[in-house]
């Protein structure tokens, strides 16, 4: 029903440029996730779509029609705010019915009631319809906010970190619910989060936003497996990717990653050869690294020393110092090491990432 196109959109607050030259295409009925750390401009982007923040320059097209000069009520958007922004002086019922009673909609009161009750039933908040938001728990408030957004089948549903204030269990639960619901509602959804797992789990496509600029747009597997730069790679995955500084050198006419006196061979290719002598980072995801007591029989390993190890049920998280850096390693529970034990980290060659030090550009990604 609705696609959204950003064309060179800028947003400034005084001297501060919150969004710089944003161009983006969100397809009809897509679950589009915007991922970024706080302050990246995610909420601003959403609010510009909703029309509660103005656009400094550039154009936003909704179904091909520029909307940046329309008032919020003229755009058919609904939004779930991070703070929920429930109306404290209204009951849950009134909160959910509020958008339907907007002067432009003129929906008869009996239909309003039907719609509210239907949504409430789906979200499981029908027992609280008479309460005020203050008397609800966080999860219930979140569902009211969701209900208020969904009750009128908007063309675009905007969700701003709707799960961030919930505890872990509820968060997972709601994530599943949202995922299930999106199928039945069938609107374009723009979902903002700082949680990569939420992004990967929910999004059809993900945009990684950093300091007001888009770093990469792609499907979850694209952005996860083939990040365009170090920033994207770093922001997806928990614990985040490990990095080791070094240079690309030529060793026996092959490109190698050189750090100290260690040499790690790299897959050959013209691209890497062109970068010989450049400062780079080697990137390894924690779940791709294994620890060995003895020097493994592979070139893809580095000596290290165990710093700390936490046992977390089915797996362990270990911190080991590799050269002067700490690496995080996810491993199995059956492996227990002692502090300061000398270990080797090792990995499969196809799991190596390589990023340029100065621009962060990806030289090597999974599968290359």
């Amino acid at each position: 029903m609705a696609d959204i196109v950003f064309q060179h959109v800028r947003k400034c607050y005084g001297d501060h440029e919150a969004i710089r030259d944003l161009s983006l295409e969100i397809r009809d009925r897509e679950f589009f996730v915007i991922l970024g750390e706080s302050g990246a401009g995610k909420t601003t982007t959403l609010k510009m779509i909703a029309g509660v923040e103005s656009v400094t320059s550039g154009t936003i097209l909704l179904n091909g029609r520029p909307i940046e000069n329309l008032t919020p009520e003229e755009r058919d958007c609904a939004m779930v705010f991070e703070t929920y922004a429930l109306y404290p002086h209204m009951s849950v019922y009134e909160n959910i019915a509020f958008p339907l009673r907007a002067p432009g909609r003129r929906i008869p009161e009996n239909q309003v009631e039907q719609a509210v009750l239907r949504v409430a039933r789906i979200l499981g908040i029908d027992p609280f319809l008479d309460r005020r938001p203050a008397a609800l728990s966080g999860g219930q408030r979140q569902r009211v906010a969701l209900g208020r957004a969904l009750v009128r089948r908007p063309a675009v549903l905007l969700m701003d970190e709707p799960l961030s204030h919930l505890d872990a269990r509820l968060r997972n639960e709601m994530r599943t619910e949202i995922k299930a619901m999106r199928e039945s509602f069938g609107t374009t959804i723009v979902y903002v989060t700082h949680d990569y797992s939420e992004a990967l789990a929910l999004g059809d496509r993900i945009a990684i936003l950093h300091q007001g600029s888009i770093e990469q747009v792609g499907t979850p597997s694209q952005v996860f497996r083939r990040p365009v730069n170090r920033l994207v790679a770093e922001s997806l995955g928990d614990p985040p990717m490990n990095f080791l500084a070094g240079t690309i050198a030529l060793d026996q006419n092959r490109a190698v990653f050189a750090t100290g006196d260690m040499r790690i061979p790299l897959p050959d290719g013209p691209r890497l050869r062109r970068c010989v002598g450049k400062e780079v980072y080697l990137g390894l995801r924690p779940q791709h690294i294994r620890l060995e007591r003895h020097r493994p029989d592979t070139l893809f390993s580095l000596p290290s020393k165990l710093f700390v190890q936490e046992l977390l049920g089915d797996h362990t998280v270990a911190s080991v110092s590799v050269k002067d850096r700490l690496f995080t390693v996810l491993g199995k529970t059956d492996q227990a090491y002692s502090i300061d034990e000398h270990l080797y980290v090792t990995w499969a060659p196809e799991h190596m990432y390589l990023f340029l030090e100065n621009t962060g550009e990806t030289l090597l990604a999974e599968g290359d």
Partner: protein
Amino acid sequence: MRTSHLFIRVLKILGLGAYFTFALGPIIWIAMMSLKNSNDVIASPPKFVFTPTLENYKAITVGQHAQHVETLRPDYPKYFLNTLIIASATVVVSLLLGTFAAYSLARFSFRFKEDIAFTFLSFRFAPELMVILPLYIVFQKTGLNDSYSGLTAAYQLVTLPFLIWVLRGFFEDIPREIEQAARVDGYTWWGVFRKISLPLVKPGVAAVVILSFIFAWNNFIFSMILGGERTQTITLGILGFIGYERVLWGQMAAATMICVIPELILAFFVQNYIVRGLTFGAVKG
């Protein structure tokens, strides 16, 4: 630990007791004065024990026919009504004008915003005496003197800047996202203002209504100079108990006690809003 807790409790009660003795002592004394006859009221040293009489109240409301006629026809009810009309009209007009201005100053960004806000405040700077004589001439030329509308207009100087500044604070306190949510839900700024912002600042409105009403009710110089025989207010009415050859302290005290009643009633009704509304913080965010 426990004893220090108890100690603090006792200290708190003592503090409150001291303040309320200070605040209510004179009120009680005025109430006692209002119940004394003309002899007891000027007794020296002052009397704490006396035979209470309602003659003062009777004298100022319906008049009295004692052998020594002290009041003519009591004008006090008229003053009371005048003040009620003027103070209510003042508050209503202030609310109508001030709420929008306060909202605008709290919510929108526009050129000269802070200057406009300060200008509003600055209307309160001018000492009454500085403007009263020229103002009187203006009023006289426009026929506004000795009229309810004229006094209502003049009282805006007292109430409006105050109302705007306080309400502005309350509006600023509404989380902006609540209003944005309402915009997204399909309401114009006016709809948001009416359905969301205004109901949410009810406690603020309640607080400024009572305070503005009090300011208007108590005004002295404006009502003295700009008022007249038709619009004489309660403040002058009470001062009128200072006669040429005697001061009717008892009647003055009775008039003072009656004068407080409308404000107390208003405060009582409005207090629900103030106290409830002020728990607003719990709902935020």
